[in-house]
Each structure stands twice: as structure tokens, then as C-alpha cells.
């Protein structure tokens, strides 16, 4: 399937001499601090490549200053990239003129912000309908659509409230509804739940998972929280100093970290919650009895614990009838005990 978004060698340099920097291979190869010292320019995004598949939940994760927020703003050109390509449904967004860009923003993608960005002088319903209003949708039609998304995000009954009368979690639901109202193809989330307290954050994460399942939209989600990334992401991109460190599914990051940075990152992750059997299985030994139960290689370790430990023979890991390996008590215990 063709990717919805395909980012190629994307650069964002802040500073008056930005175009000079990207024109020079030598300058581009410098580290951030060296570049800062040499030219005074700040490289926020450095040669980033990735694809996002239709319907995917793609998470970009990095610590503060890693360039992730700049990256997501580049994707909608809220921040103008310095160089590279961003193909959206086959069209290079960087070549779009102001009118086309507005069109795309109005119809194709929308964004949810960390600090919500709600209009304090408008009610919930008017905030949600703002995007439609901008497009020129008449008031009568706006009302119906706004109500739909308000119901969808669970804000029914708060249509007439003002943002300052709502809690942080509720305000972000308004932000979410506003983004959904225009029925975009892609939703961008810029650390949407960082400003919320932990319990509300968990609720909102579940809410996004539910919405993802119900509306099936492509989503690009920025976060600095690894557990959030692992919980939500179909695939996760780890950024550091403006560069991509690794792209992969959660179990790939945990099972095969690309370098020490990622390894250090995923160190505290409960491995049994993330790793699947394919990461811990071993080739069958001659003395193994191969008539035990079968499990798929995609089974998460945590879910396999009971069946493996209760079986008196090793569990076979089988895909399409082909024996890939076996998992016995010691492999399982190795993972579970390693977490303690």
C-alpha cells in the first residue's frame, strides 16, 4: 500500500544562514553543537526520513529538544522546512502555494496541540465548529457536524460551556473534536496529553485508541513518554538531536535496540508487556518433545506465561504451520525475572 505521508531527507535549520547550511555537505555532517559554534544556526531537524501507512498510528518519540515538535510542525508547514520533501498522497507539500496549503489544512489534515489552543471567547460548540466556519460552511450545517464530533469525544452536554469552565482533560477533548470536525485524512498530535495529570492522561490515551479504531484515520502522534508511545504506536520513531535513531514496532525497539541510546531508553520497560514470543524463542533442541501446545510468534510474552508454565512440554512457536522455534519455562522466566 502506498504511504499517506512520505518524508524524505527533511531539514529544518533555525538561523539567518539556514540555506547555506543545508547546501553544504560538510556543515550538514556537523553535530548540533559544532554547527551552533561554527555558524550560529540551530539544526532542529536533520535529514529525517520516514513513511506513514494509511490508517497507521505513527508515534514520534524523543526527549525535549530532540526536534520532534518542530518535525510535526514541518509536516503541516506551520514551521517552514529548510530542505527535503514531504509527499502527502503523492503531492509534495513543500511546493504547495499559500492557497493550496490552506486547502490542505482545511480538508486533509488537522492538529491537536499540547496547550489546546482553544479560543477563550467562544463556546465549546463554536470552538469545535471553528474550522468549518473558516471553510465557509453555513452555520446551520456546522451545528449538526459539531454536535456529531462533540458526542464522539464524549462532551455531550457541554456545548454551551466556555473553555475556562472545563478541566484540562475536557479542554483537550474540545481540541480533539475540533480536529475531527473537518473530517481530515490525517490527524497530528503534538504532545496532546503532556499537560494533563496521569489518570486523565490514561483516559485520554484510551480515548484516542478508541477513536483510532472507530474512525480509522491515519494519525501521527508526538510524545516524550515511552510508555505512551508503546501503548499507542503501531510503529515508533525515536528522535535524538534532530535525527532518527530508530524506527520500528514497540517490540522491535525493546527486542533489538539500534544503539545504546535506545537500549538505555527501553531499559525500564516491562519487557513481558512488549516482547512477543518471536523475540525469546529458541531453536528446538534434539531432546525437546515437540508435541506440546502451539502459539503464534506475535503472542505477547505476558499472555503466554500461563500456557507455557502450565504445559509440561515446551510450547511450539508456529506460523502458517511452520515451526519457528520453541519456548520453555526458562525463556519465559528469563524475561519475567529480568524485570525485577
Amino acid at each position, binding site marked *: 500500500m502506498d504511504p499517506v505521508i512520505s518524508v524524505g531527507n527533511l531539514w529544518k535549520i533555525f538561523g539567518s544562514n539556514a540555506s547555506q547550511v543545508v547546501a553544504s555537505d560538510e556543515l550538514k555532517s556537523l553535530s548540533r553543537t559544532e554547527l551552533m559554534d561554527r555558524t550560529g544556526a540551530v539544526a532542529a531537524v536533520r535529514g529525517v526520513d520516514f513513511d506513514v501507512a494509511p490508517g497507521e498510528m505513527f508515534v514520534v518519540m524523543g526527549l525535549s529538544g530532540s526536534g520532534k515538535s518542530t518535525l510535526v510542525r514541518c509536516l*503541516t508547514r506551520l514551521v517552514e522546512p529548510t530542505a527535503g520533501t514531504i509527499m502527502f498522497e503523492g503531492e509534495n507539500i513543500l511546493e504547495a502555494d499559500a492557497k493550496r*496549503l*490552506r486547502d490542505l489544512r*482545511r480538508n486533509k489534515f488537522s492538529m491537536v496541540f499540547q496547550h489546546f489552543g482553544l479560543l477563550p471567547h467562544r463556546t465549546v460548540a463554536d470552538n469545535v465548529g471553528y474550522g468549518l*466556519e*473558516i471553510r465557509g460552511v453555513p452555520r446551520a450545517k456546522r451545528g449538526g457536524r459539531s454536535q456529531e464530533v462533540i458526542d464522539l469525544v464524549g462532551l455531550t452536554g457541554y456545548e454551551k460551556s466556555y473553555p475556562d469552565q472545563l478541566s484540562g482533560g475536557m479542554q483537550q477533548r474540545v481540541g480533539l473534536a475540533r480536529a475531527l470536525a473537518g473530517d481530515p485524512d490525517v490527524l497530528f498530535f503534538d504532545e496532546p496529553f503532556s499537560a494533563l495529570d496521569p489518570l486523565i492522561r490514561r483516559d485520554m490515551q484510551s480515548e484516542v485508541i478508541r477513536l483510532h479504531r472507530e474512525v480509522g484515520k491515519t494519525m501521527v502522534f508526538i510524545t516524550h513518554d515511552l510508555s505512551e508511545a508503546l501503548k499507542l504506536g503501531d510503529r515508533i520513531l525515536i528522535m535524538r538531536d534532530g535525527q532518527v535513531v530508530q524506527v520500528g514496532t514497540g517490540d522491535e525497539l525493546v527486542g533489538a535496540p539500534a544503539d545504546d541510546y535506545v537500549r538505555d531508553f527501553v531499559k525500564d520497560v516491562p519487557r513481558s508487556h512488549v516482547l512477543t514470543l518471536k523475540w525469546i524463542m529458541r531453536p528446538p533442541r534434539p531432546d525437546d518433545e515437540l508435541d506440546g501446545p502451539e502459539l503464534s510468534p506475535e503472542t505477547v510474552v505476558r499472555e503466554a506465561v500461563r500456557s507455557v508454565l502450565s504445559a509440561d512440554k515446551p510450547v511450539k512457536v508456529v506460523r502458517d504451520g511452520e515451526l519457528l522455534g520453541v519456548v520453555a519455562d526458562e525463556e519465559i522466566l528469563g524475561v519475567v525475572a529480568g524485570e525485577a
Partner: protein
Amino acid sequence: MVAVAVPRRQIPRKALIVGGIVLAWLALWLVFRNVGTLALDASELTPLHRWVNSVNDAVGASRNSNPVFLYFFNEIRLVIDEFVRFVQALIAQPSFGRPVPVIGWLGVVAIAGFVSLAVAGWRVALLSVAGFVFLGLQGLWQESMDTLSLTLAAVVIALLFGIPLGIWAGLSDRANRVMTPVLDFMQTMPTFVYLAPLTLFFLIGPASATIATLIYAAPPAIRITAHAIRSVPHNTVEASESLGATRKQTLLKVLLPSARKTIVLGVNQTIMAALSMVTIAALIDAPGLGKTVVKALQTLDVGTAFNAGLAIVVLAIVLDRVTTAATERRTLPRWALFGGLGVTGVAVYFSYTYLWAAEFPSEVEIGSSIRQGATAATEWVQDSLPVITNGFKDFVTSVLINPLQALLAESPWFLVALVIVALSFLIGGVKPAVVSAACLGVLVATGLWQDAMITLASTLVATILVMILGVVVGVWMGRSRRADRFIRPVLDAGQVMPAFVYLVPILALFSATRFTAIIAAVVFAAPVAIKIIADGIRGVSPATVEASTALGSSSWQTIVKVQLPMARRALTLAANQGLIYVLSMVVVGGLVGAGALGYDVVAGFSQGQLYGKGLAAGVAIVVLGVMLDRLTQAAAKRWTN
């Protein structure tokens, strides 16, 4: 063992030098006293003054022939005059062949009440109805309406230009960079100074008054609007852009609505500034309450001045309350809206048709009792409290004003100039020294050196008093919430009141002297300084204060060692603002016996042959202001870094 140096308390070298300079000055003063003071008698003129007079005459003669006047200044004057006259015709002056204005008192009261109701709610509506009726009862209906007409006309024009300019400055960094220094200059210029040049171009009368008011009242509107636009959170704007809003949509649907509350605050500031300037513009023959006050001050008729001053205060309070309350979001129930509209319509119709509703009935009147009461009270105070008031006056005069004035005004001019330049260099380095030297040169050129020195002496005394008041009351307010709660509204009220109003009671207490002018300036400038210092003290991080308390500091130690040093920026800002406010009262001081530059300006308005001298005095005030402003800013920079 080598002798250990005993640690000695070091006096900073700079302080030694400054001390040396002052001592040398004193010594030379004794020697050269009254030599080269460049004194100029009150009726004496320099060639420059005569030349300005002749320019004035020439301009007067060519006003109707010179194309610049014919097609530019006269046109502006005509448009503004017509506009003001139109507003006056509506509510203040007999017009359209009628013996009374189009809308009589009943109509005006009803409109005021309805507008207040719509934007500010029931209570404020009652207040403004009561306030307007009170104006009529004072016997000052027409004067009040003249003042109101001029104020409204100036405000409308100021906002017409100010809000778009403010939006522009809010959106564009470049526009902001260009406008900020211009606005700074407009606001630091003492208010009276531009009256004289304006009369040169626009004649004496409503047009000049309105333009002067515009100059004074537009900066707050521009500044606050720009600030309001700029302080809309970035993420709100970004969210709107991410949804595909055009620049226009973002401006109309996000920026302006979010900034609305602050912009209304700017409108409030503009209205208050306009009202205070309109009363001052009485000096160039602007009609209204200000004129009544000025006339009464000139004849020392405290009762009449008080009555008219009270009317200005009432007008100020009503306008302030209405616009302040208008910042809140509010919707009137439909029935109240239409009901109010109906009642107002009927009242306006009555006031158009029937004489009783057009002219404020003169049989019910409390103005004369107010006048008599004020006169009686003044006489009583003058008769029974002279020990206190005169004692205080004589003390400040002989301890502060006289010595300082003697030193500044009786030294040879080159000596004073040398000292000031040297001090400027010590305070700020080469640049301030050059600025001071240039300013002093201009002062000499105006031919008003000695007057300028006398004014400088009064200004410095007033500023010292302002700073003493500022630190004492400011620290108190900054440390005690309760004190803040009680004092702040008083200060707010003080700032809202047009400058003239202070003069009346002060004049009554201290009669027309230099001291009276100084006290008026202190009363005018102190609220600003106090507020800045109080906010500075409050802004000191509570953690630091707590740490100091935990270390066992007494309150006094905490104030002196922690709070005041950490509020340095506020202190220097207060001194700077205090100076500027004091200077802007110099001309008002001229009305109540300050003499010197203030008197020169006032006399220049009223006597043709002194026009040139008045203008030169205005320039001298501006130059003094520029010099002191630069100096305090340089000192502040040194001290806070």
C-alpha cells in the same frame, strides 16, 4: 610576621569624585555668585523670542494665502472644527437655529444611562444617571457638555487612527519598531508644550484643543492595542492557522476577539487621558469646565474652581466606571434592551421638543451652596491652620527649595553646565554626557537659562519628595496586602483625575507660591511612583524573602537588604517616571505661582508679545525633560546591571 592590613571601609572612588565635584561647585559658587547667570526679566525678550513672534505674525498674515495653510492645515482645522461643532450642536450648544442643543439634558441623561446599562450593567447605569444629573444640579450643564463633546470628538478621532495603528504594530515587528520611539516621545513630552506650536498652525480654539488632546490620548490606545494583539497566546494563533485560516480570518476571529478586553482597557485609558487634556486645553481657549477652573484660579475664586473641579471629577468617575466595566463579557436580556431603547427614544424626543427637558431647570441648584461651602472651608483652613500649613511650607522652602535654587540659578551658567556634564559622564559615560551638553546648549540658546534652572530646582525637589513618598508608601503596600487594598483605589482615583483638580485644594491651603506648584506636582506624580515601587516590592520572589526571614532578619533588614535591592529596577523606573510626571506639571505650576518656565508658557498663551518667549520656554521644558530622562535611564542601566 608581616603587618596585616586592617580592613577599612572603602568609599567607592566614584562617590569621592562626585563629592569632590559638588564641593568644588559650592566653593566656586561662593566666589562667582550672581555672575553670568543669564537672568532675563519677565517682560524682557531675546532676539530669538522676537524672531518667533515675527514668524507667528507672518504665519497669521499668510494663513489665508499660503498654499500649505490653505490646502493642508486649514483643511484639517476645518474638518476637526466641524466635527467638534457637530458634537457640540448635538448636546452642548444652541444649534440649527434653535435656542437649545438638539438633545437636551433629559435625552443626554437617558442616553448615558442606556449606554452604561448595555455595556456595564445596572449599577453603573445608575451611577452615570446620578452623575449626569449632578452635573446639571451644579449649574454646570452646558460647560460639562462642552467638555464631554470635546472629549468624545477627540476620543473618536484618536481611536479611528489609534486602533488600526495598534493592530498594525501588533502584527508587524517592523511597524512596532518604528512606532515605539515615536510613542515614547509623544508620551514623555510634557502635555502643555505642544499647545503653543499647535496654535501656530491651527489657531486658538477647539481644533487646536482637539489635536493636542489627540496627541496626548492616542498613544495609550495604540500601545495597548498592539500589546493586546501581541499577547494572544501563540498556540491559539497556531491552532487557527493549522485549521487553514487566512490571515484575515485569524485576525478577525482569533486575535481581535481574544484581545478585546485589553483593547477596551486601552479605550478607557484614551478616554481618561482625553478628558484630562481637554480640561488643560482651556489654556488655549477650549470651551468647557477647564475654562471655568482656569478663570477661577486666575481670580483665586476657590469656590467656583472647586465646583467646576468637582464636575470634572464626576465626569471622570462616570466615564472610568463605564469603560472599566465594559471589559467584562455581558449580554443584556432582550426585554431590557428594547425597553431601555424605547425609554431613551422617548426621553430624547422630549428633550428635543420641550424646553423643560432641554434646558436643565435652574430652580433646582446646588452649585452655589457648593461654591459657598468650599469658600467657607478654605477660609476656615486658612484662618485656623496656618501654623501647620505655613510651617510645613516654610520648612520645605527654606531647607530644600531655596538652597537648591540658589545653587542652580545663582551660579554662572558655564559652571552649572560643566558640573552637569561631568556628573552625566560619571553616571553614564560619554553618550549621556554628550546628550546633556547638547541639551544645556539648547537651554542657553532659548535665552531662558535662569528660568530653566529655577524650574530644574523645583523639579528636583518635587522628584525627591515623590521618591520619599514612593518608597515609604510603596514598601508598605508591597509588604501588606491590606494596605494595598486600601491605598490602591485612592491612587487609581488620583491618576484618573485631571491635573487641574488637584490645584484647587492645594491652592486653598498654601496660596500661590513655588511650594504650591511643587506639591501639585508631587500629588500628580506620586501615585505612579508608589504603584511602580509597590509592584516591584511585591515582585520580589517570596522564596527569597522567606529565606531571609529564616536567617533571622528583622523586617527592617529584609526591606533594606533584600526587598529594596531586588526591586532596583522598579526604583529606577519610579524615579524616571516620577521626573517625567513632575515635569509635565511645570506649566500647571505656572498657573499657581511657580514662576519661571511654567509662567513663561502660560504668559505666552495670553499675551501676544510674549508668544515667542512662551514657545522658547516650552522648548526648554522639553529639553530639560529629555536630559533628565536620558540621565535617569543611563543611571538605571548602570545600577541594575
